C-alpha cells in the first residue's frame, strides 16, 4: 500500500486530503483517531500522528481537545486553492514536456481538452 | 505451576520454593504411593517363601535419597533458565531452591522416618525382624527408639542429597559438556558424610561402608559438625554457581 517512496505519514496525509476532495470526508466531520488509523493501516501510531499534525498545521484539520480531529469547514476550498496553485507547474508543465517529446502539438492538446470539456459537463 | 498464582514481588522468593515442593509432590504422587504400598506389600509377599529379616523401608530410603538428588538437579537444570526468563533474579532463584530443598528434604525425610517406625510396628505384629543388611551381615533394630534413630538420619541426609543434586544440576547447566563432572566429588562427600553419620547409630551404616572407614572413631558431635559444615559450604558453592549464571544462548 505504501510504496511510492514518500514517507508514510505524507502518504496518509495525501490520502486524507483526497478523501476530503472527493467528498467521503465532509467539512466539520470527525476523522478517525490516530490509533484507529494506525490499527487500520498497520503502522506505528506516531507515524499517523505526524500526518495529522501536518494537516492541522496546514489548516485542513482542527483538533478539539478530548473529542478528536475534525475536518476544517474551509478545508475543501483550501485544498482546491492549493491544487490550483500547483496545477500549472506540477501537472501541466511535465505533461506538455512529455507531449512535445512524443510529437503531439499544442493545438492537438487544446482541441482534445475542448472536446473533453463537452463530455465532462 | 498453578500454586505460584498471585505472587507478589517482595515475597515471591519465599513462595516459589514451597510451591515447587508441592508441584513436585503432585507430579510424582503415584511414585510416592507406589513406594509406600510396595514397601509394605513386598515383605508380605516374600514372607510366604522365606522369613523376613531385613527392613524394606531402609532400601526405599536409600532410593529416595538418590531420587531427591535427581529431583534437585533436574528441576534446577530445566527450570533455572525459564525462571530467569520469567524475571526471577539470581538471588531469588537461590532462595527459592534453598526453600525447595528444605521443604522437600524435610518432607521426604519425615516420610522415611514415619515409614521406618511404622515398619517396626508392622514387622513386630507379623513376628518378623527389622534389620539393616550390609554384605550379608545383619544389624537388628531392637526397639522403636532404634528405628526412630535410624529414620532420623534421613531427615538430615535428604537436604544434603538435595543440595548435592542442585550443585550438579547448576554446574551442568553452567558449563555445558564438562560441568557434570562435579558429580564425582559431590557424590563422594554426600555419600561419605551420610554413611559417617549413620555410623554414629547402632544400626548404621547400611551401604558403601568402605567409604567411611576413615570415620570409624569419630564421635557423633564431630560427624554432625562435618555435616553442618558440608551444608554450609555446599550452599555457598550453590550460591556461587547460581549468582551470575547466564541463560544459555539458543542453538542456531
Amino acid at each position, binding site marked *: 500500500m505504501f510504496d511510492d517512496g514518500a514517507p508514510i505519514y505524507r502518504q496518509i496525509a495525501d490520502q486524507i486530503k483526497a478523501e476530503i476532495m472527493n467528498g467521503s470526508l465532509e467539512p466539520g466531520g470527525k476523522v478517525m483517531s490516530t490509533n484507529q488509523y494506525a490499527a487500520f493501516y*498497520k503502522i506505528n501510531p506516531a507515524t499517523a500522528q505526524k500526518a495529522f499534525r501536518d494537516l492541522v498545521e496546514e489548516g485542513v484539520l482542527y483538533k478539539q481537545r478530548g473529542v478528536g480531529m475534525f475536518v476544517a469547514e474551509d478545508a475543501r476550498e483550501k485544498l482546491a486553492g492549493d491544487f490550483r496553485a500547483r496545477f500549472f507547474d506540477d501537472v501541466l508543465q511535465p505533461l506538455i514536456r512529455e507531449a512535445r517529446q512524443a510529437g503531439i502539438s499544442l493545438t492537438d492538446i487544446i482541441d482534445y481538452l475542448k472536446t473533453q470539456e463537452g463530455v465532462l459537463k | 505451576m498453578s500454586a505460584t498464582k498471585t505472587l507478589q514481588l517482595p515475597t515471591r522468593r519465599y513462595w516459589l520454593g514451597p510451591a515447587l515442593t508441592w508441584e513436585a509432590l503432585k507430579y510424582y504422587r503415584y511414585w510416592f504411593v507406589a513406594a509406600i504400598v510396595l514397601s509394605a506389600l513386598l515383605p508380605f509377599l516374600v514372607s510366604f517363601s522365606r522369613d523376613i529379616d531385613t527392613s524394606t523401608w531402609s532400601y526405599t530410603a536409600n532410593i529416595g535419597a538418590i531420587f531427591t538428588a535427581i529431583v534437585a538437579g533436574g528441576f534446577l537444570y530445566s527450570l533455572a533458565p525459564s525462571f530467569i526468563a520469567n524475571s526471577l533474579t539470581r538471588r531469588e532463584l537461590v532462595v527459592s531452591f534453598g526453600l525447595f530443598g528444605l521443604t522437600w528434604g524435610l518432607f521426604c525425610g519425615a516420610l522415611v522416618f514415619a515409614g521406618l517406625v511404622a515398619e517396626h510396628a508392622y514387622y513386630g505384629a507379623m513376628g518378623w525382624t527389622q534389620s539393616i543388611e550390609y554384605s550379608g551381615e545383619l544389624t537388628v533394630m531392637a526397639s522403636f527408639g532404634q528405628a526412630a534413630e535410624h529414620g532420623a538420619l534421613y531427615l538430615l541426609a535428604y537436604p544434603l542429597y538435595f543440595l548435592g543434586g542442585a550443585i550438579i544440576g547448576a554446574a551442568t547447566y553452567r558449563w555445558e559438556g564438562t560441568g557434570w563432572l562435579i558429580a564425582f566429588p559431590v557424590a563422594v562427600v554426600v555419600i561419605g558424610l551420610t554413611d559417617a553419620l549413620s555410623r554414629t547409630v547402632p544400626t548404621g551404616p547400611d551401604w558403601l561402608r568402605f567409604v567411611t572407614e576413615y570415620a570409624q572413631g569419630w564421635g557423633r558431635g564431630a560427624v554432625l559438625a562435618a555435616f553442618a559444615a558440608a551444608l554450609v559450604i555446599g550452599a555457598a558453592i550453590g550460591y556461587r554457581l547460581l549468582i551470575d549464571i547466564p541463560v544459555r544462548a539458543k542453538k542456531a
Partner: protein
Amino acid sequence: MSFSVSLRDVTLKYRDSEALSNVNLELEAGKIHGLLGRNGAGKTTLLSLLAAFRKPTAGTVLVNGGPIWENAEIVSRVALIREGGDFDDSDTVKSSIETGEIRPSFDRDYALKLADKFELPLNKKVRSLSRGKRSVLAAICGLAARAELAMFDEVHLGMDAPTRDAFYKELLADYMDREHTIVLSTHLIDEVANYLEEVVILDRGSVLRHEPVEAFQRMGATLTGPADAVDAVAVGLEVLAEQRLGGTKSATVTVLDAPTRERAAASGIEIGPVGLQDLFIHLTSPERDGA
C-alpha cells in the same frame, strides 16, 4: 509507565570472541524500536543484557535509569522473548503459561484468551508443539507479561504469514492500549518496518546506525538511467551499490538532496525509493568497512 534503555561502554566477550564491543546506546521510552543486524551482529547478545540473561564483561546496562542486574523491581517488568521461548519442554502449554505468573504483572486471562485465539492446545506438552506453535506460545507469554520493556527476538520464526500478521496486530493493539517500550529484532525487515519508530542497526558488535525510521526512508534512493548520466549525478554522493545492464546503470545512494534530485530528473534518470530492507542489506554488506 514505560522503560528507557541506556547502555554505556558495554562490552561482552564470550570465551573466544567479542560479541559486543564498547556499545553506547539510548533507547527512548514508549517507542517501538527495531533492532536489525546480520546473523552474529550481536542482536541477541544485546537483548540478553537488557533482560539480565547475562552480565556484561564491561560497561553499564541501565533500564528505566537503574541497573538491570539483580534488580527484581525492574527486571520483573522487562520481558525478553527469544526464538522458541524459554520453557521447560516437559511442561504442558498451560503450565508454561502459568509459570509466567512469577511476574506480578502477568495477565493470565489475557494469555489464555490469546491461546484460544491462536488455537494453542493447552494440554499438550511443549516439546510436542510444532515450531510455529511454539513461537506462538512464546509470543503470547511475552504479550501477557504486560512488561514496560518488551523485547521480541526473532519470535516470528516458524509462524506462517497470517499468524505473524495477527501477532503484530495484537502487539500494536497492546501498544496503543498501554504505553510501553517495545524492541523488535527480526530479519523480516519489510514486514515490520511500518510498525517501527526508531531503528538500530548493529554490525559486527557495534551500533552502525541509530535513527528514526523516516531518516532511513529519506536516506536511500536508486538512480536508474544511461550509465554516463548516472555517473555524472552520482559524483560526490555516497554510493552503496551499483548495477549495470547494458548501457543502463542503477546506483543506490544514501542521501539525495533536492537540487541533485532535480538535476537527475532533468537528465532523464529515474529515481526510485529504497526499502529499509535493501538499505539494510547495502549498509551491512561485508564489502563495506563498518563505516
